[in-house]
């Protein structure tokens, strides 16, 4: 299922959140990156039918999101995990999923219960399923959120910061699950954890200030930092100037800095760029422009 976004604009009063976004999201995993306030969540909410576009067009498969019928049709095939997922503290994990399944139109009780049990196992909450959600940790609530998004076996899965609050093992497990799911459906992974996109997605878009500043493959994004990534060992002060320190690791005699910069700092050696370097390089270029 392909998503076609053309000239999408969203204004909140005088504040523009999206400014003429053009984007095609094909089937499979698609990563959406960007800093806070870039417009990612607004774009997700428009795709989920929660917000209306101020201008432009969005088509999800054959459904036109500018119409009520189109938005409603997308809701039937959608799995959505919002960034801030609220749950009912007085319900157990199983009850919450059952309730959401009913609201998703899963009428057959036996199939619904079987699906809930299956997803509780998938997200590893078997032991906590009968406990009230008020007793869940942040990570456990996130896992319940992931399970609810998958209840209706959605053709379109939109997950906004899905791995926030998960421990490293859970993150890896969830990422693998997304990749497995993505085979015959569209999975839109919206995050600012670049590593999650690097490990899951072939295609990626980068939003900044409500505009798409990169749209291509993850390899292409990493290549945006070709010739701009440097490693520098120093016992003195941290490098400064027109550069971004991507990482700083303590070594035996001082610090090892990984730097993204157009001009190599003195004494630095070039290293191969990663996706994170590419992200930083694109941001640097756009901010400089």
């Amino acid at each position, binding site marked *: 299922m392909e998503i076609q976004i053309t000239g999408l604009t969203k204004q909140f009063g005088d504040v523009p959140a999206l400014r003429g976004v053009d984007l095609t999201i094909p089937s499979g995993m698609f990563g959406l990156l960007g800093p806070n306030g870039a417009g990612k969540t607004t774009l997700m909410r428009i795709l989920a039918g929660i917000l209306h576009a101020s201008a432009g067009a969005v088509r999800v498969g054959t459904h036109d999101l500018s119409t009520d019928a189109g938005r409603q049709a997308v809701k039937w095939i959608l799995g959505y995990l919002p960034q801030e997922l609220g749950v009912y503290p007085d319900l157990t994990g199983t009850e919450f999923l059952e309730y959401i399944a009913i*609201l998703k139109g899963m009428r057959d009780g036996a199939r619904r219960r079987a699906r809930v049990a299956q997803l509780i196992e998938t997200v590893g909450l078997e032991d906590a399923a009968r406990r009230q959600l008020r007793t869940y940790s942040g990570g456990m609530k996130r896992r319940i959120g992931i399970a609810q998004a998958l209840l209706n076996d959605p053709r379109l899965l939109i997950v906004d910061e899905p791995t926030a609050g998960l421990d490293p093992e859970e993150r890896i497990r969830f990422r693998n699950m997304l990749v497995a799911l993505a085979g015959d459906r569209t999975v839109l992974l919206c995050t600012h954890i670049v590593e999650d996109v690097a490990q899951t997605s072939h295609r990626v878009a980068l939003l900044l200030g409500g505009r798409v500043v990169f749209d291509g493959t993850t390899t292409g994004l990493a290549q945006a930092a070709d010739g701009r990534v440097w490693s520098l060992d120093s016992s003195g002060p941290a490098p400064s100037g027109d550069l971004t320190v991507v990482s700083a690791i303590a070594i035996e005699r001082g610090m090892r800095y990984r730097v993204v910069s157009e001009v190599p700092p003195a004494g630095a050696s070039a290293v191969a760029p990663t996706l994170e370097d590419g992200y930083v390089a694109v941001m640097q270029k756009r901010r400089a422009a």
Partner: protein
Amino acid sequence: MSAFLGALRYEFCMQLRRRSVWVSIGFALVLLFALFSRSGPPERVLPPADTALRLVGNASFFLPVAFGILLADRWRRERSLGTLELLDSLPASLGARLWGKYFGATIATMIPLLLAFALFMLYSGVRIGDATLVRFLPLIFVVVIAPGLLFVAAFSIACTEWLPVPLYAVLFTGYWFWGNLVPPERMPTLNCTLLTPIGEYPAAAFFQHTDVGCFNGQSIPIALGLASIALLLATGALALFALQAYITRRAAAR
């Protein structure tokens, strides 16, 4: 329909599990016991149904106030819990969710309330020498009490879309005493009108309970009792439809 029933079922469960529902109604019951434990037996012997209605009238001083306040956070809390965004992304209609919540939470709150009415009637019945007065409660509850509660519940859910819950609780308490207990000859009030949620008209029309309150022994036709019930239910429904229309309109403008 299944979304409505699902919302009803789970809102019922959530409300019934709230400790504050049981504690608040228990507190209102203790207040009632404290207030009426010193009152003596009736001055004259009344028919048992009439006595039962008097007791219900006494209990209605406080119990429905707790009932209305306990429902006031039900709609509002979708915002404070952060569940709205998820719910809005689901195919279930707003109407199914809203009406399911209304009936589920209302019925759940009625359970401890009914229990409190029963305990008060049992206690008072024993004190005045007729422990079986409580047998009238189911019929009185359906005909006299429930229509007013449904009316109150609708406003408690709808008004908190615009009013903070604590402010609503204060205003509602004021309304309850003004609209049900203030005699109309003292100041303009909804008391003694068809819109009195305490159930003066149904009590008078169906049980000939006319010697206290608004009617001074004057008989009230069944039609007026039915009209009062219909008016209370319709006004409550109107409040919920207004809320539904407002939210739909707001969602379209987002």
